[in-house]
């Protein structure tokens, strides 16, 4: 009689309740003068099933940790537990060994002391399981009774069931938010720990980045935790090089699609562009590391640059820009479409050509939306990890030469978390601080961009 059996039994009861309530409701309906009752039989069925199963399942979920605590308590009260080591790993392992044998997940014990405890464990487990089972059944029965007492032709089960559905939907939408908050909380927590070891000033404004995971964790050298080279590399690759590629190409393709492409061309070109957005970033990463980076190095050599890096910022940035093109293009396309046709008509009726109309009226009118799209694109580019991990460097250089090797925040997060430092080491915790800064920046960008888009939409509605 494990928890899963209990779950099955409760669900079975729920099903039975569903069937019974439903057939009773069907009978009501037959008896009713005009063949109509307040709610369809199915809703009565669901109402009963919810009352039977949901409280009982909730109880089971709550009960299982309580039962564990009660079992341990009663085992410790047993005389055989008196000689257990007072605290520590030894005590815990003996207890868990005995428990494993008692509930059948292990066959034998190694520690003789544990053997003594198997029997008490078995007894206590059995006892509390029976209690849990009985209580769950009682709850199910009470729930069922409540539901069946309300089962009348004029009972509006439909509304009640819909309210439950609403609650479930609300719960589902909260999951993502709560998870995000949890992630942020853990990020903040680890970041604060890191800033306890290295001051935020050194971290945010230092220009030398070389954390050593093998150093003494209690006495980190703050001068090795200056993140400016990472911020610069991220900005240079994600916000400058990538955007130099993505903005003009994305804009031009959007203008072509929106204004010039014949309808038939548009129907296949637009999805084709959107497919680009679905290419896994690791594939772009390969492309950057194996094709673009060597090509750029060879080109640099050909024009006489001495000793160009094979992991240039340029390669990572260009490929990232290509990745972002569909994104920029689709945002720009939407913004241009949102400009009322009357604007274009007004311009054309003045004798402007289509090109002049686009340049002087449509794009300026769509500019807020386009800017917002670019900001979203930047926030995406600076958070992008796979391309830069594969194509950018791990070396933190502060340089304005796109042919130099540079690293980004995300690359360093990966490097620090997969490095050999222990989890408490400042070099590892620095990854959380980096993640936190990145999170704040992208959050800010997204927030501003969404507000701009909203204002822009309102302007034309």
């Amino acid at each position, binding site marked *: 009689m494990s928890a899963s059996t209990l779950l099955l039994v409760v669900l079975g009861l729920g099903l039975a309740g569903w069937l019974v309530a439903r057939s009773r409701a069907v009978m009501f309906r037959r008896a009713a003068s005009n063949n109509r009752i307040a709610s369809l039989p199915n809703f009565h069925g669901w109402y009963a099933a919810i009352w039977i199963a949901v409280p009982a399942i909730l109880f089971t979920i709550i009960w299982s940790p309580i039962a564990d605590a009660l079992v341990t308590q009663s085992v410790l009260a047993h005389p055989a537990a008196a000689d257990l080591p007072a605290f520590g790993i030894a005590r815990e392992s003996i207890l868990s060994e005995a428990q494993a044998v008692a509930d059948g997940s292990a066959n034998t014990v190694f520690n003789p002391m544990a053997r003594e405890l198997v029997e008490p464990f078995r007894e206590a487990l059995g006892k509390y399981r029976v209690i849990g089972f009985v209580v769950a059944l009682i709850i199910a029965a009470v729930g069922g009774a409540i539901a069946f007492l309300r089962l009348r032709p004029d009972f509006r089960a439909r509304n009640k069931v819909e309210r439950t559905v609403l609650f479930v939907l609300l719960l589902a939408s909260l999951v993502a938010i709560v998870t995000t908050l949890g992630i942020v909380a853990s990020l903040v927590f680890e970041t604060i720990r890191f800033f306890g070891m290295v001051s935020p000033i050194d971290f945010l404004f230092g220009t030398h980045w070389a954390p050593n995971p093998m150093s003494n964790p209690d006495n980190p050298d703050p001068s090795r935790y200056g993140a400016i080279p990472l911020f610069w590399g991220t900005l240079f690759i994600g916000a400058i090089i990538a955007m130099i590629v993505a903005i003009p190409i994305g804009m031009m393709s959007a203008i072509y699609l929106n204004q010039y492409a014949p309808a038939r061309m548009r129907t296949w070109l637009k999805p084709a562009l959107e497919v680009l957005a679905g290419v896994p970033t690791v594939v772009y990463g390969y492309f950057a590391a194996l094709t673009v980076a060597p090509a750029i190095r060879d080109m640099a050599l050909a024009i006489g640059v001495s000793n160009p890096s094979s992991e240039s910022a340029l390669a990572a940035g260009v490929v990232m820009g290509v990745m972002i093109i569909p994104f920029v293009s689709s945002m720009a396309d939407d913004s241009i479409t949102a400009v009322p046709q009357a604007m274009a*008509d007004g311009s054309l*009726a003045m*004798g*402007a050509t289509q090109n002049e109309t686009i340049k002087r009226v449509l794009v300026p009118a769509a500019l807020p939306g386009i800017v917002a799209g670019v900001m979203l694109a930047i926030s995406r580019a600076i958070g992008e990890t796979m391309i830069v991990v594969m194509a950018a460097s791990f070396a933190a250089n502060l340089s304005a030469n796109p042919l130099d090797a540079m690293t980004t925040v995300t690359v360093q997060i990966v490097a620090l978390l997969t490095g050999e430092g222990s989890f408490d080491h400042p070099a590892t915790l620095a990854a959380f601080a980096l993640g936190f800064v990145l999170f704040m920046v992208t959050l800010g960008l997204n927030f501003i961009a969404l507000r701009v888009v909203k204002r822009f939409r309102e302007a034309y509605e």
Partner: protein
Amino acid sequence: MSETLVPPAPAPLSAEEVPLGEPKMRARDVSVYYGEKQAINSVSIDVHTEHVSAFIGPSGCGKSTFLRALNRMNDTIPSARVQGQIELDGEDIYASGMDVVQLRARVGMVFQKPNPFPKSIYDNIAYGPRIHGIAEGKNELDAIVERSLIRAGLWEEVKDRLTDSGTALSGGQQQRLCIARAIAVDPEVILMDEPCSALDPIATAKIEELIDELRGSYAIVIVTHSMQQAARVSQRTAFFHLGTLVEYGSTSDIFTNPREVRTKDYITGRYG
């Protein structure tokens, strides 16, 4: 059935009749199709300088469609197709050698809903002169902007805030801004598609006054649903019905002595 016609408005403002002379625009047997559907069937009409021609008729009869054929704005609708001949000063505007850009600079248009560009008032007016390279230098452009705003009766209201956005003006001001924008390129014909339908009576009165003033220098065509407006501002009125031109003549004739019973029914409000 009463036989007396009730003219919905007093006689046109301008008592003095201007001789018609050579037509500015001449349409002959014009038919317009949207795909397979015919919206205008063989319409012939002349438009004269120093005259306001009003197009009236029930909704969907093709007034806007015909108006847009006059400056080839129908070109922007892929399914639209125009047959027949339309001439501007004797020149076929649908001829292959015709420059649409030049045509639209000569035949300006004001739309039903004011559509100022989301730019400053100044830039709205300067838009046309700039793209057509009309002004030489800033001073000349300033002069054009001022002159156009004065002619549109908007100068006094906006002269201190030319850098404000055109979209920040009231509806009536926006519509006058659009008229100023249209006359800034010095067109010969101005087409107006229900220019007052989004405006209150006071703004409407201002626009009507403006139209009457502008008449002296342009050929003006105005589409309207208001009989009173047609009677007030126009010298010539065309009644459209189901894609055909039923009757075209001097406004006073149309309103007091229509030849066609359909016209009479429409202007007396008996038309459904």
